[in-house]
């Protein structure tokens, strides 16, 4: 547990939505930097926020994304082939930071290690980023990042999974700031017909282990799934379903239109949820 008092941009947004007139969960949208291009991804993120995303998860393209399914890997491979650099992610953060949603960067750990953990935290904070989501970094290996996040006032979003035992839920909840990312299912990112049934229990267990806010990701792609998850979680994380329209579109304009329509559908789903009290 951090003793340093650090404001959390994503927690403030989640709390404001929960306390607001709709008393609703947040819609958290993922897109990778550099797909279809760096400026194109900035436009896509802004379009996503405009259509109803509350918190942005900006992905740093990586050569070996073991927690991502084939759809996101296709987009990320294209971003790397297009020459996207780690530095571009910081530029993109800066360019979307004023869009109206806190921006978290999702990154595999080696990219931050190579940049320098403290240097990356410093530059991310300077760019207006809210923090990091780290799919292949567990708190046990995160001492440097915990210190850097405290020093630079950043959120650190760690993951829990249906396989996590109670003591790990507790240690992960204690290490996280902003929210805890609950993987709805044992698996990688991708659209699924149903959201894992273990997700609701995992959210309850993670809260019981001390987490103030728990958001659910992996497999959420349809409005009714978003509504279902929004009824028990603090946020609904959507990735592949937002990347697909950009991958499928013949050109950028139609891609952005299709993206906004998918976002609007999921945003409506989140807003329609009957919430159980936190």
């Amino acid at each position: 547990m951090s003793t340093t008092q650090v404001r959390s941009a994503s927690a403030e947004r989640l709390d404001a939505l929960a306390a607001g007139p709709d008393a609703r969960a947040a819609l958290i949208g993922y897109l990778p930097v550099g797909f279809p291009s760096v400026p194109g991804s900035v436009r896509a993120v802004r379009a996503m926020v405009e259509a109803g995303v509350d918190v942005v998860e900006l992905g740093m393209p990586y050569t070996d994304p073991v927690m991502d399914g084939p759809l996101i890997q296709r987009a990320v491979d294209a971003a790397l082939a297009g020459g996207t650099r780690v530095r571009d992610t910081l530029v993109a953060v800066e360019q979307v930071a004023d869009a109206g949603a806190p921006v978290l960067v999702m990154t595999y750990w080696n990219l931050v290690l190579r940049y320098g953990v403290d240097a990356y935290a410093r530059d991310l904070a300077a760019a207006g980023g809210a923090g990091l989501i780290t799919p292949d970094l567990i708190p046990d290996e995160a001492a440097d990042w915990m210190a850097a996040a405290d020093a630079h006032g950043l959120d650190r979003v760690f993951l829990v999974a249906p396989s996590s035992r109670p003591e790990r839920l507790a240690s992960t909840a204690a290490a996280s700031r902003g929210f805890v990312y609950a993987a709805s299912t044992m698996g990688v990112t991708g659209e699924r017909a149903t959201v894992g049934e273990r997700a609701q229990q995992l959210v309850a267990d993670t809260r019981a282990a001390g987490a103030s806010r728990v958001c659910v990701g992996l497999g959420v792609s349809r409005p009714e799934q978003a509504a279902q998850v929004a009824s028990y979680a603090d946020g609904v994380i959507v990735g592949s379903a937002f990347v697909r329209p950009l991958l499928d579109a013949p050109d950028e304009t139609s891609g952005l239109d299709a993206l906004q329509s998918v976002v609007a559908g999921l945003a409506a789903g989140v807003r329609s949820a009957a919430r159980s009290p936190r």
Partner: protein
Amino acid sequence: MRDVLRSGGTLGAHEGPYFGEFGGRFVPEALVAALDELDTEYHKALADPTFADELERLHRTYTGRPNPITEVPRFAAHVGDGVRVFLKREDLNHTGSHKINNVLGQALLVKRMGKKRVIAETGAGQHGVATATACALMDLDCTIYMGEEDTQRQALNVARMRLLGAEVVPVAIGSRTLKDAINEALRDWVANVDTTHYLLGTVTGPHPFPEMVRDFHKVIGDEARAQLLEETGHLPDAVVACVGGGSNAMGVFNAFLDDPDVRLFGFEAGGEGVESGRHSARFSGGVPGVLHGARSYLLQDEDGQTLPSHSVSAGLDYPSVGPEHAWLHDIGRATYRPVTDVEAMQAFELLCRTEGIIPAIESAHALAGAIQIGAEARTWAADGRDAVVLVNLSGRGDKDVATAAAWFGLIEDEPVLKADEGEQL
């Protein structure tokens, strides 16, 4: 044999998860419970004499252990005057390489854990064939991930694995080679971890794999140490091995780690030369970083993106290396040097011609390494005796005949691999 799994002095008995600043567990949280279970089961098995007995029985009756050491004087003449060279004959194991040591150990653990399905990655196909073999023997479902490019380069090993009842999945994303096969195996494992064991093939990956896989290969060095003492009356002056992920090297090094007079040399794939950028020389051309769950030396660009590796030998063609090697490198206990494709193929041909042994191209890197250190080795002779170099011959070269035929221009056309035209590999 029971001692084999537990022996060792200060360095030799080092346990994970960290080897100095290397190793660790850089994995999704979803895998932590399975890694903990594996770690617990493994240490329970170590404490259970029936486990070591069963592994010893399998090695004696199935693997063909102990395999011999062979002195190779006609080859040694090319290393240098006053240098005796001995080969540890892992090439004589069932399935043709050291890989079977680890595979049988892990497969026994799978049975203890009550899991029914095994997945594995393979580059050249050696680990895939060994895994498919153990799964056939122990009645386990087996899925092997292999880069699409490697399935084409190693079509015969694909057929071998399928003959043994394994499902072979060509991986057509990313660079379509070993590292992408590992990515895909990790994705499968995250999704199926309740029923499935990931039988990792080398001393890389998250804890407890580097420590456990090393322990299953310790038998190489322990046998060789006793055999050399009997044959020569003293310890070798140097132990030489090739290093891809590094399992055969850790296996042969371990028994000598706490003998400071025994020099340890690991030879990695220098490909077309470290300066060419087309190589797998992590210690010469890489810097520390994280890939596939462990921190170690890594071929990466200035952003931390994994760089493609290259080697004429598929088994050494990997951008990272086992964390224990990274530690031994940094503390100066072992020396790591590159061997180019050309040097390795020269040594390959030399062993064939001088000793009647066709080595795996991986192992030919160790042979070329012995030649590299030949001039130095002459100076180690002392007390009126010759210097002794032990080379771990990690595998046999049957699988590499097509590559060698193309390299040396031995066949007019592309090698014919159709069964109805008499291919007998």
